[in-house]
């Protein structure tokens, strides 16, 4: 079970591993030396899928940067050059553009999996907080990436989002000018966004390594949410979860491919194929779909500063989730009331997304405000109170017992999970 026991069979590899134990590291973190609960379901695939997305984005991004020009005059042209003349440029760009959406789909499911099975609770609080940091970095990276093609939505999205900072009292306008490097979104803005868009993914890689490190101390949570009691509850990561993850990757790539090959522009906005024009604002500015819930929260408050604070609070709140949830039981399987509220939160986030896509008029304003209020109520009111008052179901004695029942040689478990 320990990393130290690993010895490569091949003499040369053993020689190398004695001097730089990188093989032992892989063996112990992603290989046969890493013990994982035996009952992880397919929602545990989304961690490795998120890692794959990051790798795909970095790989395609690096080659796109070989052809892209971060200038006001050249950006749109260089993107069309990639689409038309660079060998497989269209493929690389469509993978990169749709890959951002895929990354967010995967990460959102990964986050909601954590919420459902209580993966953020002790002893995994720091693991969870690192995840929130990754989400924030992803949002910044995706936002700056969307600016680079220098279409109408790029330009006006950049203008609107950077203007959020003007809500800051006293120094707001100076901060916005500082972010722009001028008096509007222009050449300096584009160039710094390109530079940072290239940099941040590598920062994400760094935080991902910390995220995995923090995961490996307590090990993975599992659908039952109970601690691993002994070796009977575990299997080696390799080959069991490498095989399972590979299957997940295969299915995911088919889903990804449907977008890349058959509807590559369906997640984008047609206006972004119009070159940026600082003199004309599009009729209706919408962010990319993954920002819509946050956009809805921003617009829920009529006050400029209030909206901005609320939007940042919606993500910032997640840092405190491990302490806001007062229940000691992790998995929603044993918390019937929490399970209901979890699904309400999912519905609430979808509603926020829909509201974010519509202009703030008529009933949408009220719906947006109610959905925003519920979002905060879920974390600030429902979770703290629920942990104290809810009636929970009895926990099984061990994973092996719950999963295997008779086969584990113990008395039958109350409720098999799968």
């Amino acid at each position, binding site marked *: *079970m320990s990393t130290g026991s690993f010895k490569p069979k091949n003499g040369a590899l053993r020689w190398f591993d004695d001097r730089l134990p990188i093989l032992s590291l892989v063996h112990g973190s992603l290989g046969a030396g890493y013990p994982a609960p*035996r009952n992880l379901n*397919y*929602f545990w695939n989304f961690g490795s899928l998120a890692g794959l997305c990051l790798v795909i984005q970095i790989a395609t991004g690096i080659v796109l940067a070989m052809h892209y020009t971060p200038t006001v005059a050249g950006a749109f*042209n260089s993107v069309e050059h990639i*689409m*038309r003349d660079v060998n497989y440029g*269209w*493929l690389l760009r469509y993978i990169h553009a749709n890959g951002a*959406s895929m990354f967010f*789909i995967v990460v*959102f*499911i990964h986050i909601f999996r954590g919420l459902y099975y209580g993966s953020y609770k002790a002893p995994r609080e720091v693991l969870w907080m690192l995840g929130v940091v990754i989400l924030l970095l992803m949002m910044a990276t995706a936002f700056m990436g969307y600016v680079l093609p220098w279409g109408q939505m790029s330009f006006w999205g950049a203008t609107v989002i950077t203007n959020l900072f003007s809500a800051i009292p006293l120094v707001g306008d100076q901060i916005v000018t500082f972010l722009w490097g001028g008096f509007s979104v222009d050449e300096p803005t584009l160039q710094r966004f390109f530079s940072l868009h290239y940099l941040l993914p590598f920062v994400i890689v760094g935080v991902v390594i910390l995220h995995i490190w923090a995961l490996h101390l307590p090990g993975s949570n599992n*659908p039952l949410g109970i601690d691993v009691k*002994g*070796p*009977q509850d*575990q*299997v*080696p990561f390799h*080959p*069991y979860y490498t*095989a*399972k993850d*590979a*299957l997940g990757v*295969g*299915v995911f790539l*088919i889903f990804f*491919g449907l977008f*890349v*090959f*058959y509807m*590559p*522009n*369906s*997640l984008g*906005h*047609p206006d972004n*194929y*119009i070159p940026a024009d600082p003199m004309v604002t599009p*009729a*209706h500015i*919408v962010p*990319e*779909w993954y920002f*819509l819930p946050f956009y809805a929260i921003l617009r829920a408050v009529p006050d400029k500063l209030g909206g901005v604070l609320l939007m940042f609070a919606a993500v910032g709140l997640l840092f405190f989730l491990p302490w806001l949830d007062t229940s000691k039981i992790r998995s929603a*399987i044993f918390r019937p009331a929490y399970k209901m509220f979890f699904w309400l939160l*999912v*519905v609430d986030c*979808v509603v926020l*997304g*829909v509201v*974010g*896509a*519509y*202009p703030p008029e008529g009933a949408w304003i009220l719906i947006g405000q109610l959905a925003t209020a519920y979002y905060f109520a879920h974390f600030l009111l429902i979770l703290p109170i629920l942990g104290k008052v809810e009636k929970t179901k009895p926990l099984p004695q061990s994973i092996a017992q719950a999963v*295997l029942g008779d*086969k*584990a040689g113990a008395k039958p478990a109350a409720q098999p999970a799968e």
Partner: protein
Amino acid sequence: MRIKKTFILGLVASLGFANLGLAPSALAAGEAVKLKDIEFSFEGPFGTFDRAAAQRGFQVYREICSSCHSAQYFAFRNLEGIGYSEEMAKAIAAEYQITDGPDDFGDMFERPGKLSDRMPAPFPNQNAARAANGGAYPPDLSVIVKARPGGADYLYSLLTGYEEPPADIELAPGQYYNAYMAGHKIAMPQPLYDDMVGYADGTEATVEQMAKDVTVFLAWLAEPSMEQRKSIGFSFMIFMSIFVVLLYLTNRRIWRPIKKGAMPWVGKDEKA
């Protein structure tokens, strides 16, 4: 099992929500007018561009649209993509005068077009285009099909959507009524009339025919790599389907002993 089902429902819901993000914006720009739904050969997972229609569409673009609209990403070498031979593409290129230079004396000069040249624009810059068109800028048509909600259907509808204005619509000078334009007021006068071009292949040049042809041409121009994309996509899907079946079988076989209750870690600790 129930948990899984509800989770999958959640996944479907979140995808639906991804698509919802698009619907309203299409509504906003198109003002809820239902577009004419034309069956184009390039639609669908195996769709290809109708070469003959695209060539006729190129003729319409050359003889009508290009007097006001540029197509800055269109190079003559691209003509081979809609079925012209290299010789024909060269001949077409040579019909255009391209500004080149500077020569040895520092002057710009005109020469016949080559395959590597791009279609010359009708106006030297946006301001000149605006000045010549009553203040309205005729947009570049290179990616116009991708730049409008509704794409090819929108373009066809717009080109065939000129009507007598209803009584309650006031049109300023230089404005025309179009059923499919956002706000119904368009600065472009009706561009197509029957028999404006003489098709070499004998096709009758009705407004609908020309609108459809030029839409095919512009759809191709917006994305010349579409056919390659779909054909690679098809191979990709076949490959991945087989691969996923193999991955599924491999995974099932690897997990079989565990599902039966094997405990690979039990007893291993003592050895370590």
